[in-house]
């Protein structure tokens, strides 16, 4: 496996008396897809916010491209964040801006491209993601799936090395979810980014994963493949598998019946 681009080393984080992460260690390899799964409230979103430097850990180090993101000054943090693209759960589009302005925002704020260059780049991305003709609409006029695509278009503008997806298919029907997964595969092949996906959409999401991290009771366990999870002897992981993936086995059993 290639060199890790993100590494958690003994990370602890509490909110008041609630201990969300109690010594978390994992490594995310560059250029691959890592899925972070786990029941609700086990610190998946907190982990994403820690990677982005939006939260600071109480203990431990969070190495992103070899540097501890929790110990950066605001300027360094801004630079480090240029390497990230984020697709938020609700897409987090600026609702007072049109689709075009949303996608153009990172280019206008962070690059010195001319208006014409920005326009060309934005229109190309919108076309690639099947959003041509929607550039003058506002986020409130878009469907859930389209919002996610606009969010993805915006996140890809600065050609990020690492893409973080927070529950990318929540609130979408199965057909739209598949469409989003297809987009991930296509854009990842095209841009070659490292992909970190936090998702509830188990077991479907595992088809995309090169590695799976399961969070529970403040700890994280890394598995090289979905099969490894099923073979795990750890009782908590087995519980998680039974609850979330039990259905597949049930349906396979059913298939065998005459």
């Amino acid at each position, binding site marked *: 496996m290639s060199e890790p681009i993100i590494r958690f080393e003994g990370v602890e984080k509490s909110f008041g008396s609630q201990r969300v992460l109690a010594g978390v260690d994992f490594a995310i390899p560059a250029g691959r897809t890592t899925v972070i799964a786990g029941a609700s409230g086990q610190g998946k979103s907190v982990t994403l916010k820690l990677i982005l430097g939006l939260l600071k850990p109480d203990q431990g180090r969070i190495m992103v491209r070899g540097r501890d993101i929790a110990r950066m000054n605001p300027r360094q943090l801004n630079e480090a964040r240029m390497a990230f693209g984020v697709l*938020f759960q609700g897409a987090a589009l600026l609702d007072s801006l049109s689709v075009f302005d949303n996608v153009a*925002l*990172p280019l206008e704020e962070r690059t010195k491209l001319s208006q014409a260059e920005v326009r060309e780049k934005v229109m190309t991305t919108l076309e690639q993601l099947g959003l041509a003709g929607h550039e003058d609409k506002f986020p409130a006029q878009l469907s859930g799936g389209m919002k996610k695509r606009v969010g993805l278009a915006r996140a890809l503008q600065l050609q990020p090395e690492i893409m973080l997806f927070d529950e990318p298919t929540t609130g979408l029907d199965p057909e739209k979810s598949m469409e989003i997964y297809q987009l991930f595969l296509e854009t990842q092949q095209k841009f070659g980014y490292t992909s970190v996906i936090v998702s509830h959409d188990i077991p479907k999401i595992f088809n995309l994963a090169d590695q799976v991290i399961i969070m529970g009771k403040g700890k994280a366990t890394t598995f090289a493949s979905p099969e490894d999870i099923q073979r795990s002897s750890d009782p908590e992981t087995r519980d998680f598998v039974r609850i979330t993936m039990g259905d597949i086995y049930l349906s396979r059993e059913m298939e065998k019946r005459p």
Partner: protein
Amino acid sequence: MLARIERLGEHTIYILQDLGRMGLFLLRALAGIGKRPFRLGAVIRQTRLIGADSFVVIFFTAAFTGMVLGLQGYYTLRKFGSEGALGSAVALSLIRELGPVLTALMVTGRAGSAMCAEIGIMRNSEQLDALECMAVDPFRYLITPKFLATIISIPILTLIFNVVGIFGGYVAGVTLLDVNPGAYFSGMEASVINKDINLGIIKSFVFAMLVVWICTGRGYFVHVIRGAGFGAEGVSRVTTQAVVLSSIAILVWDYLLTAILL
């Protein structure tokens, strides 16, 4: 007993944390003024929303405040046979007190609440996080333009309030009642001095700062304010809190500034 002391301590720590957060928020918003490139377009847009769009409200508030002052002043002054002093009474009340205070209160209600709700919703729907993740400073992009626009708008609106109010007093005292028009303006000219005007302008700058600081700050911290709740309810409670806090702050600082500067 011990539990009560614990609660008191917890509450004190929360208040100190909140003050610290708001203090740092103010510093970051002001630091944004010096950062390049300057977002002139955003400042102009916000000045239109906060300032120009408040003109009608300010005009009517000022006109009727001036007319009431003219009416009340006339009947009070007539008891002492000094209706001629109506002009200076109206002008001094407006320039020193009512102009800055009422303008700031009206802007709080009209634009301050809108700013707070806008930023609160952006916080709840992760739009502020999204800006930070794109390495776009939410202060420079969003908060600082609102600060500049409010600090530009409120003093100008205050001056408009004063002028409209003085003519409102003229309509009530001179046109509708029987004060001599010459006496109305000459009395004003003789009694209003630079110090009064400066006091009014200083007040309007301080009030502008309070309004924009409290309203944007409460919205920005909607997710950590204790007892605010979540989602739409959180935003509505925080907006109410912002308007109430701003209004009280304006009145308290009005007293303090008058006591110090007069």
